């Protein structure tokens, strides 16, 4: 059985209100606020990127884990905004936290579920006896085309998890994980393109709901779960409506989703989305609590996890900033500053 | 050691000299100095030139050869000297040592910088090479920011005010308005200085010396040759040089430039004088705070009291201890490699009584102080009639 011995979250400090974005494009601000349920989103500072975000989250995870970084056997970072197309983010983060050397590493991509795919991979390496500790990170500085609907919610953030065989230091145990994958072209980005394309309403039923729904149902069946068995539900959050609707469809209540619903005040951090929902839950969950998490990556697929919280969470939780505290630690910027930070201005 | 005198001086105007090149500037200053000395080119035993970076500004290295060649002085032994903004002062010291040691009798010492051929945005980067490239410039520090950090701390520890910093600029512009070779020959009001654009808080545009082109040159001679050739030799009675930490983060006290303190002590000892004996000085005011720190480090005022000194007019042209009668780097201009030599031109001109409207009365002993970077190098010379 695999346990999580450390977790860390990072959310950049800058926020732009969705109403400010709507103002610039001459759109009704209620589209985003009420329609998407997102009031503001996080924006990386001009000196931040997926690597710096991943490093910040990893350092917190390391602090909570309390292990010597040299014992790390693997680092896998999932993102759709790796700073380099060729040269892994993982090696830079490894150097930043001091675990270069005997180390397995590669970068992952599967739209918004690259981080959870990284978790599954690290689990396999531990279970197979290949490594003692492994670091899995989901982080992104996602972009939406100016004026596109995606621009309201695409944001930045990341979470890191250090895994090992379950032991007394585990803050949580991953009881089970499974995935559901099909070829579904709902959202994509070609090489050399700066912004992604999407299929509009096609991203709903045949994409998000089909995969999150199927994977979660498979988990419910496998673990013989009833909705009331689960204390917290975490779904990938492209907006605030989809995860709440998904929960309802599956028989869960809105209350079970609320703690993880970070999207309302920070937007959709893509590979950082569901994993930040998970860290938000770990920040408050009690030993014995059950967490059901299903991520979603366009293209498409979902990874589902069933997690039990362990005693060690009580000692480790307070060692680093909490997810919602970071979301509330903010400074507002206007659209012009946002375009400068996100390099949307043609400089030459 | 032989005694050494300055027997000729010359300089170009300092400014944005679009029609002049690195070569033409050097030649112009050289011709003026040799004519002033009355020395024909064949009698020059050695040539020393201070130049911070022809390499970066005009992509020209090997300045030593270029100047000897274009100056028509081949095959004279020629050496280029570099230590950022102290290149000129250091060149003087090398020339001095060549004669004092008996290696040469008549030496030409020049300093030149051609800065305006580079774009302003490039110049900021080139000047930052005087700082610690890896650990200051790489992290986003600019050259003004290093002095700004010193200014902020000086204000914190000693209560130095922005007004005192600004008065340095006012004083030096006044002096510069009386100097036909100065880059800026206009007065500025205190209001104008204090309202100018911020460059690196608390330093504003008018607290910073400009980017200038220019060259300066002096002719040095041994005692024997000086007495033979010149009827007005000015003696170099003291010389001191010292190194300091290249990065300001490595200093124990960022309000003091140790290199100046040490170079000053050596120069005073060699000359057999104390700070009280100095009648006037040309000091390195690359930024207004630098002048305040310089006059403290040279022992003219207690640490922390440099600001008060300018406020009380002690360092004005008509004060007890005129500082930077030429206009200083602020108004005279700062073609980096030329500055150290231009300071000598001013001191010698004053001691000869030839400074016209900015003449200091009863000038007997003058001092020059030239700094490299934020204090990595300092060179001090003392002159007397």
């Amino acid at each position: 059985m695999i346990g999580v011995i450390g977790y860390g979250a990072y959310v950049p400090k800058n926020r732009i209100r969705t109403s400010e974005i709507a103002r610039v494009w001459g759109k009704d601000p209620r589209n985003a606020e009420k329609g998407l349920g997102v009031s503001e989103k996080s924006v990386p500072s001009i000196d931040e990127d997926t690597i710096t975000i991943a490093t910040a989250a990893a350092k917190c995870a390391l602090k909570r884990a309390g292990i010597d970084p040299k014992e790390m056997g693997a680092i896998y970072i999932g993102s759709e905004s790796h700073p380099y197309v060729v040269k892994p983010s993982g090696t830079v983060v490894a150097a930043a936290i001091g675990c270069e050397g005997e180390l397995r590493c590669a970068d992952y991509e599967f739209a918004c579920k690259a981080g959870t795919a990284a978790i599954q991979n690290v689990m396999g390496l531990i279970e197979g006896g290949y490594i003692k500790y492994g670091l899995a990170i989901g982080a992104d500085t996602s972009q939406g085309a100016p004026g596109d609907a995606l621009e309201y919610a695409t944001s930045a953030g990341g979470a890191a998890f250090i895994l090992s065989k379950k032991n007394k230091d585990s803050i949580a145990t991953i009881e089970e994980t499974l995935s559901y994958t099909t070829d579904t072209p709902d959202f994509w980005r070609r090489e050399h393109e700066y912004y992604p394309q999407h299929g509009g309403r096609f991203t709903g039923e045949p994409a998000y709901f089909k995969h999150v729904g199927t994977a979660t149902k498979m988990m419910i069946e496998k673990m013989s779960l009833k909705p009331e068995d689960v204390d917290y539900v975490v779904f990938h959050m492209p907006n605030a409506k989809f995860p709440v609707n998904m929960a309802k469809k599956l028989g869960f209540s809105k209350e079970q989703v609320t703690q993880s619903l970070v999207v309302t005040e920070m937007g959709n951090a893509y590979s950082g989305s569901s994993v930040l929902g998970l860290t938000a839950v770990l920040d408050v969950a009690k030993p014995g609590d059950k967490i059901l998490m299903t991520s979603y990556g366009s293209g498409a697929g979902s990874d589902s996890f069933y997690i039990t919280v362990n005693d060690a969470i009580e000692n480790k939780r307070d060692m680093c900033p909490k997810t919602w505290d970071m979301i509330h630690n903010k400074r507002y910027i206007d659209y012009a500053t946002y375009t400068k930070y996100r390099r949307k201005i043609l400089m030459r | 050691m032989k005694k050494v005198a300055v027997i000729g001086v010359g300089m170009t105007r300092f400014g944005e000299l679009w029609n002049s090149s690195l070569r033409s500037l050097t030649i112009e200053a050289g011709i003026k100095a040799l004519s002033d000395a009355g020395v024909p080119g064949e009698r020059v035993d050695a040539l020393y030139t201070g130049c911070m970076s022809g390499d970066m500004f005009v992509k020209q290295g090997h300045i030593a050869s270029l100047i000897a060649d274009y100056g028509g002085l081949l095959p004279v032994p020629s050496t280029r000297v570099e230590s950022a903004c102290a290149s000129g002062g250091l060149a003087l010291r090398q020339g001095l040592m060549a004669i004092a040691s008996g290696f040469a009798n008549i030496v030409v010492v020049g300093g030149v910088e051609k800065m305006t051929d580079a774009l302003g945005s490039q110049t900021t980067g080139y000047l930052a090479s005087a700082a610690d490239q890896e650990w200051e410039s790489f992290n986003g520090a600019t050259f003004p920011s290093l002095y700004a950090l010193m200014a902020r701390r000086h204000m914190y520890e000693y209560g130095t005010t922005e007004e005192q910093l600004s008065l340095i600029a006012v004083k030096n512009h006044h002096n510069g308005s009386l100097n036909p070779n100065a880059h800026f020959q206009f007065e500025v009001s205190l209001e104008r200085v204090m309202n100018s654009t911020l460059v690196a808080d608390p330093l504003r545009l008018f607290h910073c010396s400009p980017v200038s082109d220019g060259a300066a040159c002096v002719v040095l001679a041994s005692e024997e040759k000086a007495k033979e050739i010149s009827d007005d030799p000015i003696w170099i009675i003291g010389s001191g040089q010292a190194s300091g930490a290249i990065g300001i983060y490595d200093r124990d006290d960022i309000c003091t430039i140790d290199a100046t303190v040490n170079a000053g002590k050596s120069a005073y000892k060699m000359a057999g004088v104390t700070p009280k004996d100095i009648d006037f000085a040309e000091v390195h005011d690359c930024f207004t705070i630098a002048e305040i720190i310089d006059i403290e480090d040279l022992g003219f005022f207690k640490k922390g009291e440099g600001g008060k000194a300018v406020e009380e007019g002690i360092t004005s042209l008509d004060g007890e201890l005129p500082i930077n009668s030429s206009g200083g780097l602020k108004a005279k201009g700062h073609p980096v490699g030329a500055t150290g030599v231009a300071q000598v031109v001013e001191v010698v001109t004053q001691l000869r009584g030839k400074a016209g409207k900015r003449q200091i009365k009863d000038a007997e002993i003058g001092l020059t102080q030239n700094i490299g970077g934020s204090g990595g190098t300092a060179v001090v010379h003392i002159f007397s009639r």
Partner: protein
Amino acid sequence: MGVPRFWREIPYRYRLIGSYCEKCNETFFPPREICPRCRRSGNITDVKLEEEGEIFSYTIIRTAPPEFDVQTPYAIALIKLKNGPLIMSQLTDCEIDEVDIGKKVRMVFRKISEDGDAGIINYGYKFILAE
């Protein structure tokens, strides 16, 4: 900056590894080949410096070289590290009027510069105000 030149400095820039002289008990950053006080009689080893400190002096840069121009105005500070030396660094994620001598700061890992759009990204230490 060339690729190998930056790569050599990674441990210092990423993890704040400095030098410690066992003879005179001083720490230095950036690292030194030889102790400036003890010279050859010293004994220099690597040491991980603390990531917290206090602002010793600061300035706000308004005119910057091309690679930093888009960030102006930004703060540069001399920071006295806890149990360590002075270090020069950019401050980030702060309003410029929040910066003052004596304020507590802590290290973060950020992008320092890039060798153009196609070149290597240079990462390293910056500091933020510690709440």
